[in-house]
């Protein structure tokens, strides 16, 4: 309890279905780091820029902020159909040449984070595309020779793939195998479409899904935009098609597990970031964002003194030795090098399936054609995990924990934790970018502490900006904030005199104004706040030499208080009315 007059809202709690999901990978094993110490104890004196205060009460707090892509619920969203218009301003999100894929299970938070706004958390039921059109081809049985499957890519390239007795990848268009089993037919169609010369390789990506009764080929136009919304046609009765839809730059088309209850136009945060190298080696710079609940709306003097850590993401090296974007995806429904065994609900359980083909090995290693089996298989042995391959959790292929880069603007517009020469730079190595190497979510680093509410002006609310420049996609990048909130009461002049009279001295600690480290420049004679501010604040008043000297000291208000018993001579700005923020104004 802060004190006997709590401001804290005691409203009803949110139902569980409105709460964002927990950390997707849990915390890495190992003990928690040394907790950040409570710097100030009740009863102690602290010096702020505005003067001397006494700590009246203290309470710990923690917060989670999700730093994924921001967007809005788009027109056409209803039920389990979700359209998201991404609102990020980075040019990479408006690319007309590159899109990306969101995996099934990706979480999406609908509604503003913080406060007691109603939220909804949605889960992608299947993989979704950003900007790119998707179509499907379903094979229900073997095909008849000579029948056609016609597909058009976004650039207008039309190819009619012909069913034939044997697969032929040398012809243009390629010919797919018509016999054997529906699974073999589907696999051959995938080979044809992905072929660079006789197919649509590099323009359309074909993915084979063998988990259902009938194999489904998912086709993705690799070029984003409406040009990809082309038709798919066939004259084969055992093949059904669904033409390409959903292609639109800057838009995600998805199917969700839950039914949408939030309105079109509401803010969303997509808890996923694509790998940086996917987009031609460029990176993704998300817009700066802040969270209003990082400042107390209490009209008394309440400060938050917190440390923050960045979530981590496991990094693998693929079975083939590729260290670039090995990812975490497992048995991927694609025709990768995997072995699987049929589950109890499927067909013969004593068969091992190679590469999702219809041909399998029985327990004695004999080749068996079991094409009538269904394909609800379980991975075995070198289970799919990482590129082309495997991964044993914390075994051979696991390497470490990566993270996005985060930088902090506080006060607004000023980069913190950067060297002097780069504080206004976007240099990804030098301009205050911090990773989980420096401050992980498992052990936030007190060297990068944030203080809000202590400043003498209105802009101590930090803004966070995320940079994705590593070659792995990220699930639910987030910030954990842990720390303390302090209720302070101003110490009167009379109380100070009384302390000096009784003991001759008094001790205090310093709470730094967060803006005053990076805010002051290196001018030799210029005023701390710049000439313009000084002239404006002194307008109509005489300025003594002493005033001038102190205005150009370039030290914080606390140091001014310590050395001269007064704060700097610039006029004190009025603090914001906390009720405005509380009311969402």
């Amino acid at each position, binding site marked *: 309890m802060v004190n006997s007059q709590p401001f804290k809202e005691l409203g009803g709690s949110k139902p569980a279905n409105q709460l964002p999901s927990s950390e997707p990978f849990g915390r890495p094993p190992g003990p928690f780091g040394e907790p950040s110490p409570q710097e100030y104890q009740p009863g102690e004196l602290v010096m702020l820029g505005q003067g001397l205060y006494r700590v009246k009460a203290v309470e710990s707090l923690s917060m989670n902020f999700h730093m994924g892509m921001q967007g809005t619920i788009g027109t056409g969203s209803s039920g389990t159909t979700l359209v998201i218009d991404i609102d990020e301003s980075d040019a990479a999100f408006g690319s007309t040449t590159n899109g990306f894929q969101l995996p099934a299970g990706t979480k999406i938070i609908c509604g503003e984070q913080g406060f007691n706004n109603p939220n909804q958390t949605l889960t992608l039921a299947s993989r979704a595309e950003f900007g790119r059109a998707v179509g499907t081809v379903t094979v229900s049985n073997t095909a008849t020779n000579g029948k056609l499957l016609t597909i058009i890519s976004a650039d207008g390239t039309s190819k009619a793939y012909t069913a034939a007795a044997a697969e032929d990848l040398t012809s243009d268009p390629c010919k797919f195998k018509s016999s054997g089993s529906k699974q073999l037919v589907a696999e051959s169609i995938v080979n044809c479409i992905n072929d660079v010369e006789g197919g649509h390789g590099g323009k359309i990506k074909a993915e084979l899904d063998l988990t259902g009764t009938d194999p489904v080929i998912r086709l993705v136009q690799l070029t984003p935009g409406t040009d990809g919304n082309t038709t798919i046609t066939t004259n084969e009765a055992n093949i059904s098609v669904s033409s390409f839809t959903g292609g639109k730059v800057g838009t995600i088309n998805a199917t969700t597990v839950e039914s949408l209850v939030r309105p079109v136009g509401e803010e969303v945060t997509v808890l996923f970031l694509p790998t940086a190298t996917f987009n031609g080696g460029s990176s993704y710079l998300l817009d700066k964002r802040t969270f209003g609940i990082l400042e107390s709306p209490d009209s008394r003097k309440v400060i938050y003194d917190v440390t923050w850590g960045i979530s981590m993401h496991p990094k693998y090296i693929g079975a083939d030795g590729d260290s670039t974007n090995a990812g975490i995806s497992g048995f991927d429904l694609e025709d990768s090098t995997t072995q699987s065994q049929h589950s109890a609900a499927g067909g013969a359980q004593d068969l091992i399936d190679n590469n999702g083909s219809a041909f399998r090995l029985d327990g004695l290693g004999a080749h068996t054609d079991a094409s009538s089996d269904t394909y609800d298989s379980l991975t075995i*042995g070198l289970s799919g995990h990482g590129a082309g391959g495997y991964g044993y959790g914390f075994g051979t292929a696991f390497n470490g924990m990566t993270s996005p880069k985060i930088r902090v603007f506080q006060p607004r517009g000023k980069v913190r934790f950067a060297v002097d020469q780069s504080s206004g730079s976007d240099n990804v*190595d030098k301009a205050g970018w911090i990773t989980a190497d420096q401050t992980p979510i498992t052990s936030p680093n007190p060297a990068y502490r944030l203080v809000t509410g202590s400043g003498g002006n209105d802009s101590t609310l930090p803004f966070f900006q995320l940079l994705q420049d590593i*070659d792995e996609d990220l699930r639910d990048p987030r910030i954990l904030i842990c720390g303390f909130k302090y209720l302070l009461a101003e110490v009167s002049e009379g109380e100070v005199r009384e302390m000096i009279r009784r003991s001759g001295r008094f001790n205090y600690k310093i709470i730094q104004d967060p803006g005053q480290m990076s805010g002051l420049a290196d001018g030799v004679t210029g005023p701390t706040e710049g000439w313009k501010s000084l002239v404006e604040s002194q307008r109509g008043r005489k300025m003594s030499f002493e005033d001038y000297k102190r205005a150009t000291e370039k030290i914080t208000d606390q140091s001014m208080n310590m050395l001269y018993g007064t704060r700097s001579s610039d006029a004190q700005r009025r603090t914001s009315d906390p009720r405005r923020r509380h009311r969402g104004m």
Partner: protein
Amino acid sequence: MARVNFGRTPTVRGYNPLANTLKPGHVIQLRGEFYLVDAVEGLTFDIVCTANGNTSGTEISAGYDSGYFQDADLEPYRNHLYCLVPSLPGQPKFISRSGGYDGVGFPNDETNVTLSAALRSIGGASRTMVGLISPRLYLKHPAGVPRWHADESPENDKTGFLDCTVSPHEDPNPNFAIWIESGENQLPQFRLVNTTGEVIFNPVVHLQGFKCRLKHMSKGDVEAARRANGGKFVYKVIKPQGLPHAGSMAADYDPSQ
């Protein structure tokens, strides 16, 4: 430009002792003068070694030697002081499935294995990660003065360098912190040498620590502080350049005075 980043180990990060090295209100003695610590802020800085020897992307090959270099962006404002701890990111080191470990890199375990006998169990044969490796980092600071070495063997193969064993990036070793003052001759000069026998894909020197702004205290300020503190005057001594180097000892000359 995206780089391959192997991340940090999932183990605990120790409490950062640099967080409390200096705080606002502390007084330090630096080169015989007293300064009030006016403000303190955390700091992070990466130096990517991309020149001289890169093959493609940002990796450095075995045997790469950057030579000494400096980054002018590390010079603080005249009234600022940096305290930075260099550290190096680790890259996984493997023993291949055949038992080799010398320059094996990241072996491809999808290739065929040819058996020399008819019956051998090879199920799941794959490389094994056994540790982390990094290039060596040498330092001259101030310009031209080797650091971190035994007096009689500067820049030797035995001494005077950091690697990810001594100062890993997820837990930098504060014993190797360097203080950087304003002035070009105070810039640290680094040298990165790849002696691992492997290609290093993330040749980065992490620097992390804090910066502080200093207010020079006049004699009047010192006296006022002494009076306010009941006659006591407490301060820390900062020696930004470590021990005098061997040549200056021979000359009985201490550049830090």
